[in-house]
């Protein structure tokens, strides 16, 4: 197994479970399930035990591995020199289960949907660009940027609202963008995180071929998950593009005075998406956007920047739902944390987070007290004041 040489080096000291200030458990699966086995250290020891045939593959072992939200808190806070390889170890261990065909049903169904439908929603591809109606956004035909929307932005109702908002903001700033529409394919970030290397390679190569055929050089992503994989993994397969998350471009548009706002009076806090923040170190641009809007009172949550607490949607959990929605679910904990700041709005920059948090505020019955809005929606509201 890849990275087999480092597995025994885990000391199970538990730093991986915490953020920098030790406020609370920061590993979503450990927080949810409670047993040490569901923590990063637990996974490392179990992976080694399985390789040494001290335990067998089982349903529970699969649940333990696939409950990881790949939020990266362990990589950030592990004190050992091999910390950057932790998620890769888990990925390699999952890949072994994929190869053996011993994966949880939710994971199996996710792969199957993508294999068959090229998207996890099992929706026909021709409906992929339905969200774009009346936005004025056109198909890609040589514009400066490809606006890569992704599965959640294309098919999920909450995601589609976000896609429309981002498209509107970019259009109003005269950014030259086009989309692939029904030709767009899943980026493969979650597929890779879940260990399906073959399917990921297929998706990535398909996308790279398409991007190159169209002469695409610059890509704006809606979703930090896509941002992550296009930026970090596609170059290894020959796909080299300038990849931006929309918040990075919007921050520059504001700096260059291509977007203006009226006052918007609200108290707002911001959630750092894992794949934008910890995985790719983009922390400042979203904040710069919010701090530029007059009237907004910006407050930070205690767990912020590289200490942010994951919404629970990563690692495929958005689709597989292994972490579930109980009181201890990451998204419910996080919205309670946002509410504690006194904020009226929880700003997000990821459609997965947006959906997870909107469901959470409903379950917590606090939707009248805490509104979930993405950065683009906030900008639009400020411009409409």
């Amino acid at each position: 197994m890849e990275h087999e040489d480092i597995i025994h080096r885990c000391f199970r000291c538990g730093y991986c479970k915490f953020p920098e200030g030790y406020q609370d458990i920061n590993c979503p699966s450990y927080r949810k399930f409670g047993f040490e086995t569901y923590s990063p250290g637990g996974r490392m020891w179990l992976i080694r035990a399985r390789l040494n045939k001290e335990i067998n593959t089982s349903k529970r072992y699969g649940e333990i591995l696939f409950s990881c939200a790949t939020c990266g808190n362990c990589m950030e806070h592990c004190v050992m020199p091999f910390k950057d390889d932790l998620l890769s170890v888990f990925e390699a261990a999952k890949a072994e289960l994929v190869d053996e065909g011993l994966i949880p049903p939710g994971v199996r169904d996710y792969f199957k949907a993508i294999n068959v439908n090229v998207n996890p929603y099992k929706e026909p591809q021709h409906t992929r660009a339905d969200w774009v109606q009346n936005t004025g956004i056109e198909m890609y035909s040589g514009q400066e940027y490809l606006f890569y929307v992704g599965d959640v932005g294309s098919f999920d109702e909450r995601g589609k609202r976000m896609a429309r908002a981002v498209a509107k903001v970019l259009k109003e700033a005269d950014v030259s963008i086009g989309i692939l529409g029904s030709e767009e394919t899943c980026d493969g970030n979650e597929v890779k995180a879940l260990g399906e290397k073959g399917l990921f390679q297929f998706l990535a190569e398909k996308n790279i071929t398409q991007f190159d055929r169209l002469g695409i050089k610059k890509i704006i992503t809606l979703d930090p998950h896509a941002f992550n994989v296009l930026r970090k993994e596609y170059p290894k397969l020959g796909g080299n593009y300038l990849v931006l998350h929309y918040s990075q471009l919007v921050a520059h548009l504001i700096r260059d005075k291509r977007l203006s706002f009226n006052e918007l009076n609200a108290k707002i806090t911001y959630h750092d998406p894992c794949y934008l923040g910890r995985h790719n170190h983009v922390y400042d641009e979203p904040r710069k956007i919010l701090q530029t809007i007059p009237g907004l009172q910006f407050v930070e949550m205690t767990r912020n920047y590289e200490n942010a607490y994951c919404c629970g949607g990563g690692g495929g959990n958005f689709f597989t739902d292994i972490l579930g929605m109980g009181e201890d679910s990451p998204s419910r904990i996080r919205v309670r944390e946002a509410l504690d700041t006194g904020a009226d709005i929880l700003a997000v920059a990821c459609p997965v987070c947006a959906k997870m948090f909107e469901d959470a505020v409903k379950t917590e019955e606090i939707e009248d007290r805490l509104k979930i809005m993405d950065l683009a929606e906030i900008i639009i509201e400020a411009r409409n004041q």
Partner: protein
Amino acid sequence: MMEKSYEALIEIVGPKYVSNQPEEVFFYSRDPGISEPHNPDFVVMPGTTQEVQEIVLLANREKIPIVPMGASLSLAGLCIPLRNGIVLDMKRMNRILEVNETSRYVLIEAGVSHGVLQSYLNKNYPRLMHSIPDAPPMNTIGGNMALFGSGHLSQETGFHTEMVQGLEVVLPTGEICYTGSCSVVPKWFARGPLPDLAGLFLGWLGTTGIITKLSIRLYPKPRKKDVLIFVTENPDFIPDIVYNITETKMAEDINIFAQPKPDWAEGFQQTAIYITGNSEEEMSFKRGLIRRSLHKYIHNKKGGFMFVLPMMKPGMMESPIRELSRFADVEKGGGFEYIGVIIAIEDFPQLYRDAVEIAAKYRPKWSIMCRVIGRGHSIMFSYAWPFNRANPEDMEKARKALFESNASGLRNGGVIWKPDIEGQSMMMKMMDPNTVHLLQKIRKTLDPNDIMNPGNWEIS
């Protein structure tokens, strides 16, 4: 019978918090040290004292051993179920119940971790702190207190057990008991002046009951902190150096360490003296007094203060110091275990020499880490040995080093802190027979069915 017990446990804590699955059995059968694994039958995570009580009553009925566990970071195998049974992972009991700011104590459930308490106090009571051990922040306060831990305030105020004001305990027979002022009045501010029942549960390694709540002392938190490192080449100087520094009463923490790497450390003893205060004048004053207390060494060129580079300081000033956990990766092997010996200050030099000798035999990479306890009343001297858990031969060498460390500690007049089974056995053989008899008598009285962490504190 096991099936019946399993269902009974589910009845008590709910299905989510009981496991007899191979994964949990494997993980909870061992700790990061070098002890042999022993499988539990069940791993259970209680959420309340009542649940703990019901589990204990069940265990008595069915004669199932119980091992209470915090974060299992003793590294001495103290949470490994030597006779199988139930491992009780206490970390769900993690509520901070009350902070009494004026009388400076905090009442917590036993599963609260040091890290979470530290964070909570930083945010809500920034003028207060508790004594933080060197173990990783996941270390539970209940566990640390129960095994006589020490931390950054121990030089000023003694072992962590001395900071315990009151306990709520579930006895091995299921009764819920209280020790300290809380047994009489609602507040948990003092351990005495009642008969010191807390002593029945502290240092017993979980063999006399399960601590479910405790109140511990809090201390004023200074705004400033600094560290001075005094370097010597002769361990014989250390007792006098410690005596002189502690006489000033200016240091918060005094740690002495020695290790062969990095190469500038080999052959030197480094005494890290932590000072704290609320103003620069206070800090300056304390630095001055400490420096003057060691003047004769400086004047005779036998010792001096190291220039601590700015990039070194943040790591040294952390609580806990993350570098200490990284020691486990020194052999790229994921493991280390240490023998901690509590010893009189004057015996430091011989222990030091023994450690260097043991290292020469078994371990090229090693560390001596010591803390002065209680303004110079004793030293917690630890011989730390990293090992590669993927290399059985290396683990065997580490075992031998640990054995010889236990022997060295006892031979030189020390008492082993949180001893592993071997260390317990060695000490019990040396122990006064009436004391042994008393230990056994207390255990038999409290735990007639011998269910509490059996295999520990026993004559083998």
